[in-house]
């Protein structure tokens, strides 16, 4: 295959074949050339025209600049990863993930942050998936083009561009205050409070204003526009023939959506949902605005191992209303410590965070991969 001129290498450009072709490097003005059209000798051989040689050179330089811009992104990614792994070697060890935070850099670990992020993501997903998929189904499958629907669509596009810290202020003012009010209502003690309505005393566990649920609700607002957009895209990729076929068989609209469209879109929806939820794991700013703990050695509900999830039900009940920290918050806290030994701690935290993100993204990739093999439109 013959490649376009600009791709050809220098050697070829320089190569001038003279056999039988008088190479006339025309330099006269264009109008003059126009008039002498009838009897001009031409050569198509590379390098015959000095001006074109210069243009081809410019074209190659431009291509090289664009290629440089693209590959420098990859180079930065590699440098970033190497720099972080390199900085982490002084601290990264098994006890970094089994210890909670400490003022001693050699003992500080990320366990509290891992558990905090776990609970946050669990509830964020719980809140955002039904609402997000529901909105997408409404907008794609049910809504007719009305003023209200257009308003919702424009609004969603703009919400996606709202800085996450603004949601933090909203969460602080609305959700945190609601939690505080709830605390007052139940005398600041939730299990007691709830059971107290029936005069049953179980245990006395406090409600905190800056609890997991408040954090998760705030993160839900942050990622909801992305979840909706991803689900809409997945629904759009379901061919309309499926809908028509189902409706033609006498199914109602909702039966069609629930039994045909959503199952068909499910791989796309789950990939999108997983990817947008993973964005929430890295978010620190809105949580800090809520007043999430920056330094704590306690895991939410004091659950610091997976087995306690099964063996300590009352603590599990307590965890959503407990205070928390999260991985990115701890990384932020370690990064700003003046003691330079915390640099390695922060870097180790980043390594753990990136591994978690990578695993979640791999799950999304695997879902996408298998789904694309199973379903081919």
């Amino acid at each position, binding site marked *: 295959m013959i490649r376009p001129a*600009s791709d050809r290498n220098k050697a070829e450009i320089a190569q001038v074949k003279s056999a039988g072709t008088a190479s006339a490097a025309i330099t006269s003005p264009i109008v003059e050339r126009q008039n002498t059209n009838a009897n001009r000798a031409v050569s198509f051989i590379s390098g015959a025209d000095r001006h074109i040689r210069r*243009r081809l050179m*410019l*074209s190659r330089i431009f*291509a090289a*600049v*664009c*290629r440089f*811009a*693209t590959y420098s*992104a990859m180079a*930065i*990614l590699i*440098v*970033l990863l190497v*720099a972080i792994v390199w900085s982490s070697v002084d601290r990264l060890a098994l006890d970094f993930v089994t210890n909670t935070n400490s003022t001693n850099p050699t003992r500080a670990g990320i366990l509290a942050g891992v558990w905090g992020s776990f609970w946050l993501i669990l509830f964020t997903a719980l809140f955002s998936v*039904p609402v997000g998929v*529901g*909105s997408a189904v*409404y*907008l794609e499958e*049910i*809504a007719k083009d009305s003023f209200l629907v257009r308003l*919702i669509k*424009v609004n*969603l*596009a*703009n*919400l996606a*561009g*709202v*800085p*996450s*810290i*603004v949601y933090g*202020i*909203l969460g602080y*003012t609305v959700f945190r205050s609601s939690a505080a009010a709830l605390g007052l209502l139940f005398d600041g003690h939730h299990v007691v409070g709830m059971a107290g309505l029936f005069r049953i005393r179980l245990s006395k566990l406090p409600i905190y204003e800056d609890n997991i649920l408040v954090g998760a609700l705030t993160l839900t607002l942050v990622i909801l526009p992305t979840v*909706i957009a991803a689900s809409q895209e997945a629904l759009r990729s379901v061919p309309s023939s499926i809908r028509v076929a189902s409706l033609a068989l006498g199914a*109602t*609209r*909702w039966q069609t959506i629930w039994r045909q469209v959503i199952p068909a879109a499910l791989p796309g929806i789950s990939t999108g949902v997983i990817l947008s939820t993973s*964005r929430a794991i*890295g978010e*620190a*700013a809105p949580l*800090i*605005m809520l007043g999430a703990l*920056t330094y704590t050695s306690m895991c939410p509900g004091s659950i610091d191992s997976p087995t306690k999830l099964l063996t300590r039900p009352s603590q599990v009940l307590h965890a959503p209303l407990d205070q928390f920290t999260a991985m*990115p918050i701890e*990384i*932020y806290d370690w*990064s700003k410590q003046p003691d330079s030994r915390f*640099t390695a701690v922060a*870097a180790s935290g*980043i390594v753990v*965070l*990136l591994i978690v*993100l990578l695993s979640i*993204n791999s799950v999304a990739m695997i879902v996408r991969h298998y789904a694309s093999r199973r379903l081919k439109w």
Partner: protein
Amino acid sequence: MTQANLPAWARLRVSRRHEKFIQVLLFLCAALSVLTTAAIILVLLGNAVYAPGAKKAFFEHVSVWEFLTGTHWKPVEGESGRFGILPLLSGTVMVAVIASLVSVPAGLGAAIYMSEYAAPAEREFLKPVLEVLAGIPSVVYGFFALKFITPWILKPALSLFGLDLGTFNVLSAGIVVGIMVTPLIASLSEDVIRSVPRSLREAAYALGSTRFDVSARVVVPAALSGILAAFLLAFSRAIGETMAVVIAGGQQPIATLNPLRGAQTMTSFMVHASTGDSAADSISRMSIYAIGITLFVITLTINLISGWILRRYREVYQ
């Protein structure tokens, strides 16, 4: 009586009512987004102008004019408090401009390369790389700026010119924010560049164009408004960027245009004010609402302009 016992027409009505209910439920999900926007505006604006009880709201302390034009930011109670947003605004704009200087050429170059030069296989490989770059959390970029770019790259480089760089500085923060938004510019611009019809490229080649002529004189000008929309969106993202700036950019609210020093942005002040030990009803805390609404209005305006440009651009080629 179960549904099966009902006559056919009644069953249909039951299922219709059931469906109506679900539709209303789904509509409420979608409407939640409008509610969120309304809540943001009400909560931010409301708390900035009105505080319940005896406490005074921020704009009861400070006039809007003083807030928007004041050149000193010193959010403390009493006589010595100064509440002009300009120092924070200058820090924010500086970060966003430096970020644009990094991301606009890099993002546009990558977009042109991926749409006009890269073979399909190469593109398949490059896109995920950019996605990963976009997926790395902001705190990580903050750490990278503070612990790597500033001490290992910028300090040695600037010392060659006899320039002194602060540990916290706007330059490194702006650079990492630029790296963060580069994938956004690249992918949005690539989309609009690809939507330029192939026939236009062929026509340009048929007139004796080199690839540079085709890209720079035909394709990019044809896609220009869409590319501009991408730049604006990235600029607004840079304005709202928080953690990287908080970690690497410093906390001095000074009106300066020197990127080698630290400065406070709107976002980094807000983080600073909520992590400090100031009381919940202190003036410093109350100012968060005023700054928050300012940030919201600025980013929303830019996003709306960007969306408007993009919609007009799409109309041309559809």
